[in-house]
């Protein structure tokens, strides 16, 4: 299925356009909450760089910080992706593809 981009998706879209930020967001979605230290270790870049990326993700509401002691833990909020998904567009594209497949099948079938 294809996913179309409504115009109000811009901040989320821009936040995820960067491969490093995308990797951070994917990691948090897949593996759950992590500290900045753990994220820095995985990203293989400096902690200030990771923190900068996290700020962009936070502004787009893709991640949420939780302060615990001297560490900040971050978790992903996939709900922030909701503006990106337009069901009508998803199913419109889905059925168009399937109709093409139906037409191809009809060509193959005996009369």
């Amino acid at each position: 299925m294809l996913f179309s981009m409504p115009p109000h998706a811009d901040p989320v879209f821009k936040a995820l356009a960067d491969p490093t930020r995308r990797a951070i967001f994917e990691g948090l979605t897949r593996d759950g909450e992590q500290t900045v230290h753990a994220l820095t270790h995985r990203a293989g870049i400096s902690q200030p760089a990771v923190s900068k990326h996290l700020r962009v993700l936070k502004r787009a509401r893709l991640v949420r910080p939780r302060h615990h002691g001297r560490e900040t833990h971050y978790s992903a909020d996939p709900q922030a992706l909701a503006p990106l998904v337009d069901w009508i567009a998803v199913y419109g594209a889905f059925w168009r593809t399937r109709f093409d497949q139906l037409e191809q099948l009809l060509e193959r079938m005996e009369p």
Partner: protein
Amino acid sequence: MTLASTETRTVVLEKQLSHPPAKVWRALTEGPLLAQWLMPNDFEPIVGHKFTLRSNPVPNWDGLIHCEVLAIEPPARLAFSWSTMGLESAVVFALTPTDAGTHLRMEHSGFQPDQEHAYKGATYGWQRFLGNLETVVAGLA
């Protein structure tokens, strides 16, 4: 997603097919043929029959669409419910004979533009979406 929450929306698709209705009807209602253009299934053309359409599972979605046959009127009308990821919807196919073959109309109705559906769509779609993002971004600039 700007409609009132009580409204539902419908996807409508129409196509002119150069094949007679009886043949199109077979492609819509014989399980093995349906599998070739839609999805693997255990469809039976019996009103009340419950069946499952199986697509590939992805994270947060088992890939199953639960359906029930609502109407069978050969070779003119087929309707079944379509339930997955919190989406309670219905699909109706209408076949009209034409000089050239068959006019096929599909209506997929029941999309509620509420947050819950958007959320589930996002949960299901985000990984694929991310996978395509770089391509999409390249096209935007």
